[in-house]
Structures are given as structure tokens and as C-alpha cells.
């Protein structure tokens, strides 16, 4: 009888611990019921349309106060702070001090991934069977996410927008991006990476007009560990929404051409 009682107590305790553990894990991973989005003819979630962020991450991916012309904003970095190596943190601070001239955006260069996604301009997703094309209003840029079975081409290759290979994991479009340059930044505050950057983007529809955009960044030359940012993407609701033009270099040159020493390229 006593042994039965001891066994009962032990088994109950174990069951309770296991149940508690399962419940905790479930609470961490389940969240709200997944959104079952419309499908394309190929049977994948249909992410097509015009999307844009609604945040201040273009200025700074971390929490920031307002400055002249810069709205204050919440950061999107998981844990709040980018895990820079000490030398990289010093470089970030130097970048911030000299951002007016050093920021690649000031030269109208392609901004890289993920920065392109949270520039304050709309972009359009176009799905086909073997590739997804993203058309960005900013610079009229085009990005191809290949799903044709080819792996990343053999490097070394340094591209401003990297090489993107995509796959579906359930409802989520997962994009693996490598082959970057060290000439792009993450925002207008000097946050940066090296050419060793490896990005994994996850686009998950959460409703008819919303997606969750999650990015993991890994760069052994700059960060101490992989880190993550996430933000919602919003479908543009304006009835006349369309991609227009932002031909950055033409405005820069037009402005600078007539000023002595005004050209940023001299």
C-alpha cells in the first residue's frame, strides 16, 4: 500500500513535470492559429501584391530617439542589441559619426538584403513556378529568388543584393542569401556587416493583408553569434497603389552637378 502510494506520487510528479514542460513548449511555439492563405496555381501560399513596412527601421534597426528629420522608434532586433564583436562595435560607432558621407545610401548604391525590405518604398512580389521575383520601387531594382533546384553558385562572388535561393516550409517562404559585399549597411545609423554575411529571410502570411518578415543574420567577422530581427509587412491598401520610380542617382547628380566639388564621386 505504501509502495503503491510512493509509486503513485512519483508517477504523478513525473507526469506533471512532463505535462508542464509540454504545455510550456506549446505556449512558446503555438501562438495564434496559423493563417491559411490563398494558394497560387502551384499550390503555394500566394504572397503576390504590393507590400511595405510601417516602421522607422530604415533609420535604425535598434531602439532610437528622434533626431532632426528622424522619427523615434522601436528596434526590431531580438534581445534589443546587435551582438557586435568589440572591434565591430567601434566601427559601428565610427560609421554613425560619419554616416552623412559613409552611408552607401548616400551614393545611391543597391542597399543589400535585408535593408532593401525596410526602405520606406513599396515592393511587389511576383510568383512563378521556378522563381519568385521581387520588384522594388527603390532604384527600380529587381531581385530573383530562385527555386529551380540550383544551389548557390560557387563563390567567391560579391553582389550588392547577394544570391537568393528560396524554398517553402509550410506556409513560410524561406530565402537563403549569401555572396554579399562589405559595401552595404543595415540602416542609416552605421549598423553594418562584412562580405561573409549569411541571411535567412522568412516571409509568413499572417492574414490577408499582413506578413511576418523574420531575418536571421550571421557574420563571423562582425557578430559574436547569429541574431534575428522581425517586423510585419503590410499590403498597400490604396486603390491606386503602384510602383513608381525612385532613380536615386539621377536626383543626386542633378543636384550635385552644378555645385563646385559637389559631386560625391570626385
Amino acid at each position, binding site marked *: 500500500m505504501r509502495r503503491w502510494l510512493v509509486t503513485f506520487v512519483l508517477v504523478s510528479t513525473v507526469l506533471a513535470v512532463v505535462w508542464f514542460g509540454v504545455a510550456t513548449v506549446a505556449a512558446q511555439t503555438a501562438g495564434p492559429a496559423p493563417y491559411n492563405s490563398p494558394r497560387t496555381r502551384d499550390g503555394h501560399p500566394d504572397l503576390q501584391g504590393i507590400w511595405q513596412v510601417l516602421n522607422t527601421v530604415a533609420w535604425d534597426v535598434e531602439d532610437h530617439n528622434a533626431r532632426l528629420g528622424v522619427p523615434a522608434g522601436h528596434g526590431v532586433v531580438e534581445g534589443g542589441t546587435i551582438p557586435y564583436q568589440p572591434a565591430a562595435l567601434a566601427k559601428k560607432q565610427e560609421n554613425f559619426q560619419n554616416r552623412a558621407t559613409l552611408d552607401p545610401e548616400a551614393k545611391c*548604391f*543597391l542597399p543589400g538584403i535585408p535593408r532593401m525590405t525596410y526602405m520606406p518604398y513599396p515592393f511587389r512580389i*511576383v510568383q512563378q513556378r521556378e522563381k519568385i521575383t521581387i520588384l522594388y520601387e527603390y532604384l527600380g531594382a*529587381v531581385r530573383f529568388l530562385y527555386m529551380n533546384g540550383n544551389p548557390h553558385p560557387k563563390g567567391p562572388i560579391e553582389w550588392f543584393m547577394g544570391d537568393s535561393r528560396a524554398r517553402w516550409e509550410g506556409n513560410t517562404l524561406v530565402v537563403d542569401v549569401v555572396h554579399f559585399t562589405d559595401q552595404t549597411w543595415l540602416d542609416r545609423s552605421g549598423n553594418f556587416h562584412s562580405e561573409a554575411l549569411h541571411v535567412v529571410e522568412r516571409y509568413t502570411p499572417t492574414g490577408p493583408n499582413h506578413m511576418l518578415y523574420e531575418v536571421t543574420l550571421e557574420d563571423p567577422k562582425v557578430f559574436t553569434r547569429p541574431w534575428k530581427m522581425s517586423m510585419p509587412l503590410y499590403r498597400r491598401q490604396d486603390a491606386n497603389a503602384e510602383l*513608381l520610380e525612385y532613380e536615386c542617382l539621377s536626383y543626386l547628380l542633378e543636384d550635385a552637378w552644378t555645385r563646385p566639388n559637389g559631386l*560625391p564621386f*570626385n
Partner: protein
Amino acid sequence: MRNPSFGAITLVAAALAVLALSLRPAAGQARFDVKTPKLPMSKTWVAYKATLPPYSPPRTPNGVPDLQGVWGGPGGAGGDDLEDHGYVDVTTPPQESYVSDPPDGRIPYTPWALTQRAAHRAGLSRGWPGETGERLYADPASYCFTMIGPRGGAGEIIQQPGSVIMVTGRVHRVIPTDGRPHVSERAKFWRGNPRGRWDGDTLVVEVTGLNGKHWLDSVGNFYSENTRMVERFRMADANTIDYELTVEDPTIYTRPWKMNYPMRRAGTGGTDNTTGKYAWRNTVTVNSDPYAREVWENTCNEGVGHTIAELHKLGFKWFSGVMPPR
């Protein structure tokens, strides 16, 4: 129906863009010697297409003509001189005019505009008549600016309900076909504001809102911010688009005029342009390289800084469009 998603492999990195964009030729141009035979263009195409049997294009599930696929540019020497001309220099071999109407192949400029074009040419430092050694404007393509028409280049056409999408490695156009109105003429764009509609087997694209700051070719042929263009895309056969571009601007032309040329489906030969930029022209490459149908990063802004600085030092002025004096 399967959407062909074949692109062009372009291994053009930023550094190569610098090399390609020397002062005179536009990016990626071939070099031609003085014995190059005259390249065919509008006249040859108009005569040839008159011999073709009527063609009924396949339709998309939405019932409109299916223009999808990867298409070559206009062929010829890359839009160096729109009008009929003999050998000019290594970048500009003899070639028929792109202009199909008027039949003489000449752009019907007003007297003022013809004088203006002569000034553009004399200011190029390329050996055109009237040159004084003083530089005026460089071809705006030298700064990576993009344009539609013959300078729009090769690319893929993707159709969706309500829009036709045109994508090159560098830039995109989305042409709404849902009947929406144009953006007002107050807003100007390098590639204009396009609105499409289907007229039988033809995609008709009306382009307004052009900023008038580009050139139609590299030798000073121009349009203005009052110019309206109408593009017509029609399948002449399974592998050829008959492309016609009407240009209208009473401020600088005496009458509307037209360009007309074929665009060939990638990998089917024919009137490829001669730049050799796209590997899909070479079927051996396409069949042996799994990446041959991918479009890889093709930058321009990122490598053009040196060229721009040189043009600035040489004394070229900024071209912000020209209009006749009132």
C-alpha cells in the same frame, strides 16, 4: 501553361560596368570595323513581316494574348543612332533606320529641334559636323539612366490579371491593364507612366509623364517632357514580337512618327542584338550550364562613379531636357 522563367546570365559586376562604360560607347557594346555590312532594321523588318501569314497568338487563362517569355532587344548596334547611317566609328556600324514612319526613316523634327540635335552632336566630341571642341552634354545613358523603347533592352514579360510586367536584369516596368487612369502630368518619370490595354491581339501601352531628360540614342536624338509614346506589342509568329513605338510631341516634331522592329524569343536566334551580353543566345551554353537561364546581378550605379567624375571633369553639362523658346 508553364511560365518560362528563363533569364539571361549576366556576369556583370560593378567593376566590369566601369570598364564597359567608357566615355563614348554605352554599356556592353561591341566594336565594329569599317567593313561591317549595313545592319538591318525597320525597313527590312517591315518588308519581311508583310510576307508572314496571319498569326493567332496563344491565350493566357484570362483570355488575353500570351506574350510571356524572355525576349531579345531590338538588335542592331544597341540604339547608337536611330536614323539610317553609314559607318560612324567603332561603336556605330552602318545600320538601317529604326524609324518606319515617315518612310524616309528620318525623325520629323521642327527646324528648331533639328538645330538643337545638331548642337547635341557637335557637343559630343565625337567628330560630328560643327564641332568646336566645346563639350555640351554626354549621352544620359553614360550615367546609368534607363529608358523605354530601343534603349529598354532585353527582358522577360510576365502577365498577371490586371498587369503586364517587364523585367530586365536591372530594372522593371509594371504596366497596369485594369483601366486605371494615368498619374497626372504633374508627375514625371524617366520611363514614363504606362497604361496598357488589349486591342485584339495587340498590347497597347500609352506612356505619359516622361521627364524628357533621356535621349533616344547616343547621338543626341531627343524627346521632351511633352512627349507621349504609344507602344504596340503583337506576336508576329510564335517566337517574334512585332514592336511598334509611336512618338508624338507637337513642340518638337512636325508630325507623329514611328519606330518598328522585331524582338526575338530568347534562344531562337534571329535578330539578336550584337552585344553578346546574354548567354542564352548561345544554345550550347544554355544546355550545358544549369545557371544559364538565371539572371544574375547586373549593377550600374555602383560602378559608374569614375565615369561620372571623368565626364564632369571633361566639362560636360547636365542635360535637364530642352524645350523650344516661346
